[in-house]
């Protein structure tokens, strides 16, 4: 009896899991089917002929690699800037006492929830006036608006989890405050910094609205708007090509996801994830 129940539970659970994951399976399958096979009715569940022509097409005849490069630069730059500032900020917010600290923490949480559409018009005007529109740099600036509050909030809870005694012990041993930060706090905080960096990278990699508004030249366009443009501007939509683009676009996320799963779940527990 228990085994029958166990099997029933497993079948039930895996049916749902596979149904949820099906769109992603279908994306993979479509990307390796030759174009004519897409129009087969009924659709073939697995490709009859496997082909990687769409991937070659994507790399050789579209701007995909430029977009990909832009996205890598943009997300890496945003992550580095934001994590550096937020690590110092979080240390200050958690371990120091000064006027205005509490209201600052409130402001961080508030901006963490703020909708982008409220900031986008003034930011657009600001960046146009500064002559920065249509550059990757302008997107780095725009991305800090959501990435910095997010990283600060996450790092703040990681920082709060480090025992204060560790720092005090270092201070008693004669270390300066910054020395203790460097030698004691940073090594302890490293897992938190890594998972914050990963989440920030994912957020920046997936961002769409700012990229849509602030950049309209192919040389600075990141993947999200670039790939979407391929859909809109195509005369007849090549679904295999778009699915190949989707797969390639998700590869960095899969890598992050697969190799660093333990960090990811830790981040979830610490502060939730922006959606």
């Amino acid at each position, binding site marked *: 009896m228990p085994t029958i129940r166990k099997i029933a539970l*497993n079948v*039930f*659970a*895996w049916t*749902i899991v*596979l149904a*949820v*994951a099906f*769109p*992603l399976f*279908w994306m993979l399958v*479509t990307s390796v089917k030759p174009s004519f096979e897409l*129009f087969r009715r009924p659709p073939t569940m697995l490709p009859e002929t496997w082909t990687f022509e769409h991937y070659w097409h994507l790399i050789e005849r579209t701007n995909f690699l430029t977009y990909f490069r832009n996205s890598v630069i943009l997300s890496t730059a945003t992550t580095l800037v934001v994590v550096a*500032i*937020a690590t*110092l*900020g979080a240390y*200050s917010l958690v371990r*120091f006492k*000064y006027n205005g600290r509490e209201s600052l923490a*409130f*402001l*961080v949480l*508030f*901006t963490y*929830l*703020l*909708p*982008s*559409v*409220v*900031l986008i*018009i003034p*930011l657009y*005007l*600001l960046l*146009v006036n500064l002559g920065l529109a249509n550059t990757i740099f302008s997107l780095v600036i*725009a991305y*800090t*608006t959501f990435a*910095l509050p997010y990283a600060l909030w996450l790092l703040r809870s990681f920082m709060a989890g480090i025992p204060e005694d560790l720092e005090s012990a270092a201070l008693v041993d004669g270390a300066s405050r910054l020395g203790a930060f460097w030698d004691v706090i940073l090594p302890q905080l490293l897992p938190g910094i890594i998972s914050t960096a990963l989440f920030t990278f994912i957020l920046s990699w*997936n961002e*769409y*609205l700012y990229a849509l508004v602030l950049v309209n030249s192919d040389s600075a366009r990141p*993947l*999200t708007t670039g790939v*979407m443009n391929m859909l809109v501007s195509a005369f007849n939509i090549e*679904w295999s090509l*778009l*699915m190949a683009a*989707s797969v390639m*676009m*998700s590869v960095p*996320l899969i890598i992050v*996801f*697969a190799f660093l799963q333990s960090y990811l779940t830790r981040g*979830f*527990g610490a502060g*939730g994830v922006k*959606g």
Partner: protein
Amino acid sequence: MPSQTRTLLERRYAALGVMLIAPTVVVFCSVIVYPLLSAIYLSFFSIFTPTLEGDFVGLGNYTELLQTEVFWSSLGTTLIWTVGTLTLQILFGVGMALVLHQNIWFRSLARSLILFPYFISTVVAVLVWKWLFNDLYGIMNHFLISIGFIDFPMDYLGTMPNALISVILVGAWKYFPFVVIAVLARLQTIPDALYEAAKIDGAGPIARFFDVTLPQLRDVLVVIILLRAIWDFKEFDLIFLLTGGGPLRDTQTLPLLVYQEAFALNDMGKASAYAVVMMAIMLVFMLIYIRRTRTEDGS
């Protein structure tokens, strides 16, 4: 003397603390606080986007906004979308978390697969779903026809109410993993002793869920619902990319309206007014959420 050196040290520490937070404050003021105040300021003007020239209209944008039908219909759509997708996310998310909490085969693989929709870009999710929804060759129509649910291929995104339902369903698919992970994390901390005690008292699995699991999940559920409500309310990418607000304006939510007004109809002042009103509505939820997290922090 010792007390004096201590205050000196404390003062030096405070100065160091301020120095460390300074970069954050500078960035916050220039890219968040200034634009935020600027958005409120802009909402008192009528600004033509291409030339960026405008006149002061005072509260004109606001009085006009409250009288336009499109504002109220967008607000209505936003509420339907938020409530609809949030409900599905919570129900499906809690259910899935309970299932994944059981000892099923390849549990960690199942968890990763469930998480995936949440991590992929909205652009990818939308492209995949548009392909699934394709009227002629999409697998969705093929599947629904073959199980006899529908007789003819359906238009999922071009007609009402299909478009709104599709958007809500795709939103639920994309965001329910957040609920799964948060609930799963909480489930793992419920002491087994509680279940043992309930079992001894003769509670069946359903009674155990309502008497033990649900009360234990209550706090985390409130936080999840608030957070997801805020994020769903301001969702732009998913709806914009799936339907663009169409057919006509039937799936146009407030964030799409702001974008439309600013960058398609070229009135940045009015768009700012929409954005400010939208933020004011969200503020209620934001303040409740902030109050909750702050009391939990104990600070």
